[in-house]
């Protein structure tokens, strides 16, 4: 295996070298791009040699350098400025001033494979977010900074704790049970955004009680230059199967190639955060059963507290003010042939839950150099070290334990005088759940990651019309984790202490070779890109678990009884290869056509079916280029676009073409089949989609509307549904099931005020999409994600013809007329114990509204995130209700008759017996803890209005900095995150995830159970440029 990888690498290398054989002469042109308005440099201005694939961007000082022949045309472009074409003459230095253009039409965006394309040529929608916008939010996980900024993206943080994972899906759900997250690409090559899945642990937990950072969040937000979101397979056919759910393409900051002195930037931020949203609970009735006092108990069905009983606010006593400090240092330098950028970023965060923290150190070096006039090498190297101390979530976790902790007891006293755990009930093991203070201080939950991302790109321009580029990258990380339950913890009563350590090693190697040729035929310009890529993903986890501690406070596997020690090893290797091509043709900047084709080979499919081809076609038509529409006063620009694409997809995990055997732990050991059956005749999945859209700019570009409608259908999905055990297994991998998604995305940009001293920009994005299950695997009537079945009878269930984001759960049993049936024995409603659709988590629409103001040296920007509709399972409330803590139980002394008809055999007759049985819940707790119906705890049509991010910045004017040659710029800022939330949700925060980002399908967003709400944060800091 190893050998064949090396052989393939060698093959590419030889090929690349043979291409380098020919050399032709062209000249080195350099210069500075400035704005005509204020003569300031324009960093990021794009420079391309027309008719070639060559292009570059101006550095932070507006300087650029590029190869061109005499007679060739350089095209300069930058957002908000008019295009400028300059023919290369004899001069080596070409300085260019650019004029502002209200028609922001010539934007260049990074598309698939890092190809920069004019936006007008694209037949599909892409959205770009600037790195400084992301960094300005001061969020540790850059995905959270995208929330509300990207039309079509649905972003869910797991919790508000440090290092929490965040999941992102673009344009809804397409995979029934597999991964729906987009591909992450940094500087042209994919990186790993995995969230650790607890299935690899010996304890094989279903991801409910812990969270693990999604590894994409290792990227320091301050290193991001731009981030492009390619939303559908249209945009990412060239990235292949991993991009079937879209791609997030990150371009990192590079050094300036300017001659002269380098540049130093330093910025810091200090953030304080507090969690202020909690589930409401009653403080009137004390512990007990059926109205009678009893203690200790977690049931609050006793008599009212006496007025003089002191009650403790254990919830507020527990949470602390979180504090984060962040420092970023950037060093740039170079000469006219080489440049580099070194950045060091450090984030240290203490969470709102005591003991929790997250630390990240990132060192990144990016360099590029012209080896010859035609050969350029660039390389980036990034070392990241993170550590994360966590608190458990879900059942038995801190939040739920705090809520149900006796209010008459001060939870802060968690130990006895001898240091042992203070137990509320020394005689009962089952009732005495952990004191949350004991939980965070004595149980351990930590992981550490070391990661290296490296990437080498060689670009060779042998001829003016030909470019060859080879990329090789590696993404290697190892994580060690430690999860310990103290011997005195209630969670380890039976095991007398348990510890689980794991080491996770991931290695992703990949490479690409791209050949691009361009040729013009009169008014028609064409280009052809051919490429090939390989991909080698290794993933290993070694987990070891032991029980029965010797020394109670020692954290180590050697401190456990040897006969309890178990190990589990997971080794995964996936390899893929591809060849692909892209042909583009354009006619006079008016008509654009792109055709792509790709063939993938994947190791995860049976050999007979492991090669698959898929095409795409897209086009754009710039209406305003038509002679009679040119130069319109009202409509300054209008474009129509359409695309169609298919993507094939391999099996989501390796080793499923055969069944796996599992080591048995029963007497005598041995091997026996694992629960999921393999399948030797799997074929690739297929996702096909189309998109139509329009891009219109009005009033000289002051108002822009970009609209897109898409439809995507994922068919023949590879999933592992439960089937009859007569298959010989409990689940089986099969090809089946279809999900269709469609949606509308709008992006409005406006610039209502544009004056020298005052500018106001508005951006609105709007998303409405839904994913519908067309058919389920094996023609079943329900498919559910068992991990999401975390509390009571509510789970993420798919039903044919229904939304892919539905809640399945228990509802009332009703007669044929729809009346609730009542149990004649006790007057309680009868529950329908089969799972039916009781809600849909998909919102009606989401909107992000960004306002940016600039007044003199002040800038203020604010992002409002709006959601309308979508249901949430308030499992916290159900938990409180069943334990007598919900405020809904305050009327317990009021006798009531549940509206409905008796289930006495007459319920479906002409005259059903109307229920007249009176119930007084204060004397019968089972009214609350057994007679509830889950569907009552689905909160429907949850809306929110959230102030996601707000930043006020003051940049010191040059005059204030003085004639200081050292200090080039300085600013101070204040940023608030999640400052307020207006919602009709009765729980703490509707934007949470009941599991974590590793969950497939439509996940567990909208399951609110035992998760700490997102805190609000206040940051301030300075930014200095030297």
């Amino acid at each position, binding site marked *: *295996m190893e050998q*064949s*990888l090396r052989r*393939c690498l060698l*093959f590419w290398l030889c*090929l690349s070298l043979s*291409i380098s054989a*020919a050399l032709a002469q062209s000249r080195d042109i350099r210069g500075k791009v400035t704005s005509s308005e204020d003569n300031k440099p324009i960093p990021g201005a794009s420079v391309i040699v027309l008719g070639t694939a060559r292009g570059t961007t101006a550095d932070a000082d507006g300087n650029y350098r590029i190869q061109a022949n005499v007679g060739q045309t350089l095209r300069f472009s930058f957002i908000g400025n008019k295009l400028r074409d300059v023919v290369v003459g004899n001069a080596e230095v070409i300085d260019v001033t650019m004029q502002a253009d209200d028609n922001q039409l010539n934007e260049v965006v990074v598309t698939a494979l890092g190809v920069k394309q004019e936006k007008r040529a694209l037949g599909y929608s892409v959205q770009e977010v600037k790195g400084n916008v992301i960094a300005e939010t001061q969020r540790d996980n850059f995905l959270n900074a995208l929330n509300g900024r990207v039309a079509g993206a649905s972003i869910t943080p797991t919790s508000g704790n440090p290092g929490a994972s965040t999941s992102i899906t673009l344009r809804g759900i397409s995979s029934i049970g597999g991964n729906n997250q987009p591909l992450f690409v940094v500087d042209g090559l994919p990186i790993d955004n995995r969230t650790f899945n607890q299935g690899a642990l010996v304890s094989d937990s279903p991801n409910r009680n812990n969270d693990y950072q999604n590894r994409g969040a290792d990227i320091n937000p301050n290193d991001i230059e731009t981030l492009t979101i390619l939303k559908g397979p249209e945009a990412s056919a060239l990235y292949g199967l991993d991009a079937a759910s879209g791609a997030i393409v990150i371009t990192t900051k590079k050094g300036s190639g300017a001659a002269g002195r380098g540049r130093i930037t330093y910025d810091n931020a200090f953030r304080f955060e507090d969690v202020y949203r909690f589930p409401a609970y009653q403080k009137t009735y004390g512990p007990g059963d059926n109205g009678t006092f009893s203690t200790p108990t977690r049931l609050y069905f006793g008599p009212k507290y006496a007025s003089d009983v002191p009650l403790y606010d254990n919830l507020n006593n527990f949470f602390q003010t979180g504090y984060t400090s962040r420092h970023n240092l950037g060093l740039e330098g170079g000469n006219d042939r080489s440049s580099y950028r070194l950045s060091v970023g450090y984030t240290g965060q203490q969470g709102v839950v005591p003991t929790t923290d997250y630390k990240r150190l990132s060192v990144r070096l990016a360099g590029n150099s012209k080896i010859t006039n035609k050969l350029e090498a660039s390389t980036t190297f990034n070392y990241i070290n993170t550590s994360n101390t966590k608190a458990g979530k879900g059942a038995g976790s801190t939040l739920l334990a705090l809520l149900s902790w006796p209010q008459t007891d001060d939870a802060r006293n968690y130990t006895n005088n001898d240091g042992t755990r203070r137990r509320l009930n020394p005689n009962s093991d089952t009732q005495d759940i952990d004191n949350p203070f004991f939980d965070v201080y004595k149980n351990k939950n930590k992981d550490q990651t070391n990661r290296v991302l490296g990437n080498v790109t060689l670009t060779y321009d042998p001829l003016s019309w030909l470019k060859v580029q080879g990329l090789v990258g590696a993404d290697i990380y190892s994580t060690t984790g430690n999860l310990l339950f103290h011997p005195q913890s209630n969670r380890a009563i039976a095991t007398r202490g348990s510890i689980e350590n794991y080491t996770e090693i991931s290695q992703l190697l990949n490479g690409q*070779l791209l*050949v691009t040729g361009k040729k013009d035929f009169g008014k028609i310009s064409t280009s052809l890109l*051919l490429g*090939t890529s*390989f991909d080698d993903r290794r993933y290993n986890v070694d987990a070891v678990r032991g029980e029965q501690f010797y020394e109670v406070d020692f954290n180590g596997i050697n401190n456990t009884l040897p*006969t309890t020690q178990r190990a589990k*090893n*997971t*080794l995964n*290797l996936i*390899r893929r*290869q*591809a*060849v692909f091509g892209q042909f583009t043709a354009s006619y006079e900047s008016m008509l654009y056509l792109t055709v792509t084709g790709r063939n993938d*080979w994947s*190791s995860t499919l049976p*050999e007979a079916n*492991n090669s698959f081809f898929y095409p795409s076609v897209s086009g754009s038509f710039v209406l305003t280029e038509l002679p009679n529409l040119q130069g319109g006063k009202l409509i300054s620009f209008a474009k129509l676009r359409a695309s169609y694409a298919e993507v094939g997809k391999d099996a989501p995990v*390796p*080793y499923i073409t*055969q069944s*796996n*055997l*599992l*080591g*048995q*732990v*029963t*007497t*005598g*050991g*041995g*091997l*026996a*089949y*694992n*629960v999921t*059956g393999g399948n030797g005749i799997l074929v690739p999945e297929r996702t096909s989609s189309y998109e139509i859209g329009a891009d219109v700019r009005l009033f000289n570009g002051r108002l822009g509307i970009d609209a897109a409608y898409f439809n995507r259908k994922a068919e023949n999905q590879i999933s592992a*549904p*439960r089937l*009859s*055990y*007569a*298959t*010989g*297994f*409990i689940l089986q991998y099969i090809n089946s099931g279809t999900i269709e998604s469609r949606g509308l995305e709008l992006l409005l940009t406006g610039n209502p005020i544009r004056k020298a001293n005052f500018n106001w920009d508005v951006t609105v994005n709007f998303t409405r999409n839904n994913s519908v299950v067309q058919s389920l695997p*094996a*023609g*079943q009537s*329900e498919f559910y994600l068992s991990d999401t079945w975390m509390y009571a009878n509510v789970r993420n269930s798919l039903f044919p013809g229904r939304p892919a984001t539905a809640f399945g759960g228990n509802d009332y049993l009703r007669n044929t007329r729809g009346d609730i049936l009542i149990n004649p024995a006790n007057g309680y409603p009868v529950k329908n*114990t089969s799972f039916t659709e009781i809600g849909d988590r998909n919102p009606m629409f989401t909107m992000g509204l960004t306002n940016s103001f600039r007044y003199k040296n002040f800038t203020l920007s604010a992002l409002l995130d709006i959601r309308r509709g979508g249901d949430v399972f308030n499992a916290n409330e159900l938990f409180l209700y069943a334990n007598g803590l919900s405020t809904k139980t305050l009327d317990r002394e009021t006798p009531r008759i549940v509206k409905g008809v008796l289930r006495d055999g007459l319920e479906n007759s002409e005259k059903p017996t109307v229920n007249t049985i009176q119930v007084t819940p204060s004397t019968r707790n089972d009214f609350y803890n057994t007679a509830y119906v889950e569907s009552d705890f689905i909160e429907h049509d949850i809306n929110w209005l959230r102030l996601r991010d707000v930043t006020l910045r003051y940049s010191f004017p040059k005059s204030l900095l003085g004639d200081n040659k050292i200090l080039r710029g300085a600013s101070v800022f204040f940023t608030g995150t999640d400052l307020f939330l207006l919602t009709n949700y009765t729980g703490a925060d509707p934007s949470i995830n009941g599991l974590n980002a590793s969950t497939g399908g439509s996940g567990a967003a909208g399951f609110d159970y035992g998760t700490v709400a997102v805190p609000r944060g206040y940051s301030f800091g300075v930014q200095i440029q030297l």
Partner: protein
Amino acid sequence: MKRYLLIVAALLLGTSGCKDYLDVNTNPSTPQVASSPVVLPPMFAQMARGELFDSRYAGSFIQNWAFTTASNVWDRQGYAASSDAGAEKWRSHYFGNGANLFLIMDDAAKTNRPTYGGIAKAIWAWSLQSTTDWHGDMIVKQVFEFGRYSFDFDPQEVAYAEAVTQANAALADLAKEDPITPGTVTRADLVYGGDRAKWTKFVYAVLARNANHISNKASYKPDDVIAFVDKSLASNADNFLVPHNGSNSDDSNFFGPLRNNLGSYRPALFAMNLMNGTTMGAPDPRQTLLFNPSADGVYRAIAPGQGDPNAANTPAFIPTFWGGNTVALSGIGRGMFRDNAPYPLMTYGELQFIKAEAAFRKGDRATALVAYRNGINASFDLLNSLETDATKRVTAAQRATYLASKAVAQTAADLTLSNIMLQKYIAMYGHGMLETWVDMRRFQYSPDIYTSFTPPASLFPDNSGKTVQRVRPRFNSEYMWNSASLAKIGADKPDYHTVPMWFSQP
């Protein structure tokens, strides 16, 4: 230009030269192919698992024991809706044993190791027999068909015939010379150590059950039953005992305190009355091996569905089957209910009672009496062997007294069918619950046979007054994912569990 095109062509073709680059789809962390000697050991635990999980509920149906809280659905001969409870047999038959047995059969055929093939077929025959006796109609003909998502149910008759077919196939394999196998099977076969003669006896035991269960039918042939018994287990040394290490919750006896599955069960009145002399006319010394007295020295039991009225009464508190009042106070349990006690899945005693019944029905009372008394003696020996504390074992004198008492038929002329079935019930207490339930259904829970037996005062509402006759197939296998086929046999009806079995009908 030409040169570049050539390069590109070479590039595109070049990738297909890396075919073995992709050939990495075999799991390096767990085997995907396995041979008979490694797959056989866990089969025994799976055999015990299906029976023991479900025996909790069988024990309620036959009133071996009852639940400590009132109105338990199983005590009331009902079922738990939307739950897999009561259908672990289903899981073991199709999954735990199921596909693995076929893996062994295939491997044994390929590698010419008929002993493994014979053992796998023997287990499969036993599983077919015991699963249909528990669930009734089941999937026989279409089982394990690859690519099939809905499976038709076959009538019990088909399962009975298939059990015989598989048993005969097992006998044929076990009769073959097998020079390769002995080296590995001694260790892999945790029960019989690869002894083909004992496996042959086990297969005949399955055939004896199969032939005896249809006692109500005209096709019943007592001579066949006796012939099968005579070729089957010949003494307690031939008993099929599934071993348990008892070192952790994975390898412990399901009924031991470590697994804590019997903590809420206490002896039922019917069973206690058989032991304390109330029903049989003389006290049974086996009472001390199976049950534990309260602190005041009195043996107590509870009525099914009524719950335990003694829970708050310290001197009258009924101890667990493990001896202590709580799990924590029970150590590793005792006797049959020990963490490391083996599970008697097939015993010589049971077969002697089968023979006694067949001989009695045939009219050969002399043979019946001998087999009946053999069965009782075998029960004493088995229970004594499971009791680790020698001082607590039943002495020879105690046994002789009991055997001479009026609890035991003394002459062929006195022997009744009720004598045989009651002694069989006692002999199979705590382990043969599934088989005892077959017997009780054959006799329609008749108090003429099971003296003083009464169904629970309040039957489960869905029963509509009928007694339980079968257990519904597994919820998360059939009710969730094969419901159309279930509807065809009426298993979607709320009283499906009261539909009489084919075997019990004339």
